[in-house]
C-alpha cells in the first residue's frame, strides 16, 4: 500500500502555475526527498496534501484512500516556522496537539525530555529561543508516534549542531521503518538521508528515482604521493589511463573502462611509488542535479 499517491495535482495563483500536473507515489518505508530550488513548488505541494492550500485541480490519497483528516492525525509534520500558542507553555501546547491527534497525553513528559525541553516545560512558548521553538515542533510531530513524518526544510535556521541532531533523528526514525517525506533545497541533505527523491522546477517534476541509482562510482581517482613530479611522470606509462589532471596537491586520474583503483595502485607500487592518497570519486547529487536541470533546459 502506498503511503501517498498524488495524481495530476495542480495549483495556480493567478497567472503563475506553482505546481503543474504533479504525479507522485510514496511507498511505505521510503525516505523521500522533494528537491528543488526556492520557489519550485515544494511547500505548495506539501500545503496541498495537508489541505491548507486548495488545489486548482487534481487529487491525492493518503494510505490507500482513508479520510484526509484521519490521515493527517497519523502524520507528524514539521513546517518551516514553528506555530504554537505563545501564551501557553510547552506542556499546554502539546496537550492541544495530543487532543487533535487523539493520542495519549502520557508521553508528553517523555517526549519533552527527548528534545531537551523538559526543564523549560512550564515556561511560556513566547520566552523560547528559535532553537527551542523548533525542538518543540519536533516534539509535537513525534508525540503521536506517527508512521509518517513530513518535514519542510528541516534544518533551516539551525546551527551546525542542530543540523547534525536533526539528521541523526531522521536516520533513527527511518531505521524504525517509518516513512519520511521531506522538502529541501539542500542537495547535500537529501543525499545524506534520503532513499528516493524527485526534482521539481517551476512546479514540474523533472526527475524521479532512487538516490543510490543516481550516485555510484565515477571513473575518476584522486591520487597523491610524496614526490608528486615522479608520480606524474611514471603514471603516463599506465595504459589504463584516459587522462590526468593536476589539482592542488594531488592528481586526478581518469581511468579507461575496465580499470579500477586497485589496478592503478598496483601499477604505482610496481613502479616503486607508494601512494599516500587513493580516493575513488563518487558521483554527487549536486552534479547530477545540475545535469538534470541542464538536460531539461
Amino acid at each position, binding site marked *: 500500500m502506498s503511503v501517498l499517491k498524488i495524481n495530476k495535482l495542480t495549483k495556480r495563483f493567478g497567472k503563475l502555475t506553482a505546481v503543474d500536473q504533479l504525479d507522485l507515489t510514496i511507498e511505505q518505508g521510503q525516505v523521500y526527498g522533494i528537491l528543488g530550488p526556492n520557489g519550485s513548488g515544494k*511547500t505548495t505541494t506539501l*500545503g496541498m496534501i*495537508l*489541505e*491548507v*492550500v*486548495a488545489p486548482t485541480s487534481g487529487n491525492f490519497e493518503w494510505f490507500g484512500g482513508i479520510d484526509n*483528516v*484521519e490521515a*493527517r*492525525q497519523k*502524520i507528524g*509534520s514539521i*513546517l*518551516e*516556522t514553528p*506555530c*504554537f*500558542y*505563545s*501564551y*501557553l*507553555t510547552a506542556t*499546554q501546547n502539546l*496537550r*492541544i*496537539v495530543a*487532543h*487533535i*491527534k*487523539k493520542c495519549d497525553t502520557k508521553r508528553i513528559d517523555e517526549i519533552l525530555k527527548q528534545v531537551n525541553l523538559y526543564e523549560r516545560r512550564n515556561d511560556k512558548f513566547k520566552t523560547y529561543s528559535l532553537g527551542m521553538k523548533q525542538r518543540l515542533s519536533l516534539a*509535537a510531530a513525534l508525540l503521536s508516534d506517527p508512521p509518517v513524518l513530513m518535514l519542510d526544510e528541516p534544518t533551516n535556521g539551525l546551527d551546525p549542531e542542530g543540523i547534525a541532531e536533526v539528521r541523526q533523528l531522521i536516520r533513527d526514525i527511518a531505521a524504525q521503518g517509518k516513512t519520511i517525506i521531506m522538502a529541501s533545497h539542500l542537495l547535500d541533505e537529501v543525499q545524506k538521508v534520503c532513499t528516493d527523491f524527485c526534482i521539481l522546477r517551476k512546479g514540474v517534476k523533472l526527475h524521479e528515482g532512487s538516490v543510490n541509482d543516481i550516485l555510484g562510482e565515477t571513473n575518476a581517482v584522486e591520487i597523491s604521493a610524496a614526490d608528486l613530479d615522479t608520480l606524474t611522470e611514471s603514471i603516463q606509462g599506465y595504459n589504463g589511463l584516459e587522462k590526468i589532471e593536476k589539482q592542488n596537491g594531488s592528481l586526478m586520474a581518469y581511468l579507461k573502462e575496465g580499470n579500477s583503483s586497485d589496478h592503478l595502485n598496483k601499477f604505482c607500487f610496481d613502479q616503486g611509488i607508494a601512494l599516500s592518497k587513493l580516493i575513488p570519486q563518487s558521483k554527487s547529487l549536486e552534479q547530477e542535479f545540475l545535469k538534470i536541470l541542464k538536460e531539461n533546459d
Partner: protein
Amino acid sequence: MIRAFTLEWLKLKHYRVFWILFGLYLLAQLIITNGGIFFLEWLKSKGADFDGIDPTILPIYDFPDIWQNSVWLASFVKVLISFIVIVSVNNELSYNTLRQNIIDGISKREFLLSKLSLILFLAAVCTLVLFGSGLVAGFMYSHVTDLKYIFADFGFLLAYFLQLVVFCLFAFSLAMVIKKAGFAIVITMLYSLVFEPIVTSILEFAPFTRDYTAGIVKFFPIYSMEKLCGKVYESPFARYLFQEIKDSVYWYEWLIAIGWGALFMLFITWILQKRDLKA
C-alpha cells in the same frame, strides 16, 4: 461538538486575556442590569419625582418585568462580549495556529465548530448570569414572587442568548476578513454602534423616505439583533410612565436574526474553504 469545545477550552483556560475580558463583560452586565436601584436612589436624592411618585417604588425588579428590563439594559454592552471572539479568532490567524491545527488533524469544519461552541458557551454563561442576577434582584425587590410570575416571559432570556450568539457570529465573520484583532474590534464597534444605526434611523424615520424604506430596516443585521431585546428607543421602562410598550418578540424578528446567524456561518465556511493558509 464536545471534542470541538474541549479543543477551544484547552486553548483558553490558561489564557489570562480571555478571563479578564469575560470577567469584565459579566461585571458590566451585572452593573447595568442590577444597578437600577442605585440610579433610582440617586434620582430620589436629587429630588426627582414622577407626578408625585417616589422613584424608588417603581417596580423595575418585579417578576416577570425584570426579565425584559434586564435584557434591554444588558444588550447595551453586548459589543464587549464579541471582543473575546475576535481575539480568539485573530490569535489563530496571526500565530498561524489555525493552519497548524489543520495540519495536525482537524477539518476546517471542526475549527468552525470549535469557535461556535465557544460562542454558545459565552452566550449561555452570560444568559445564566443574567438569570441569576435577575433572581437575586427579584427576590430582594419584587412585589410578587409567585413561581408563575418568576418563570413568565422567559422568551426575553432566550432572545438575549440569541442576540449574543448572532452578534458574536457577526464579529467572527469580521475577524476572518480583517486579520488584525485591534482593527477588527474597531470596525465591529463602528459598524454596530455608528454606521448601521445611523443608516437604519434615516431609513426608518426620515420624513421624506420613511414611507418607502421603513419596511426594509428590519432586515439589517444589527437592527434585527437589537430588535430581539428592544431597540434603544423601545425602552421597557416607558411602561412606568403609563406608556404602551412592545412587550414581546415577533416571530419574524426571531426568524430574521436566526437567518443572519446562518448567513454568517455560511460566510465563514465559504471563506475557510476558499482561503489558502500560507506560512
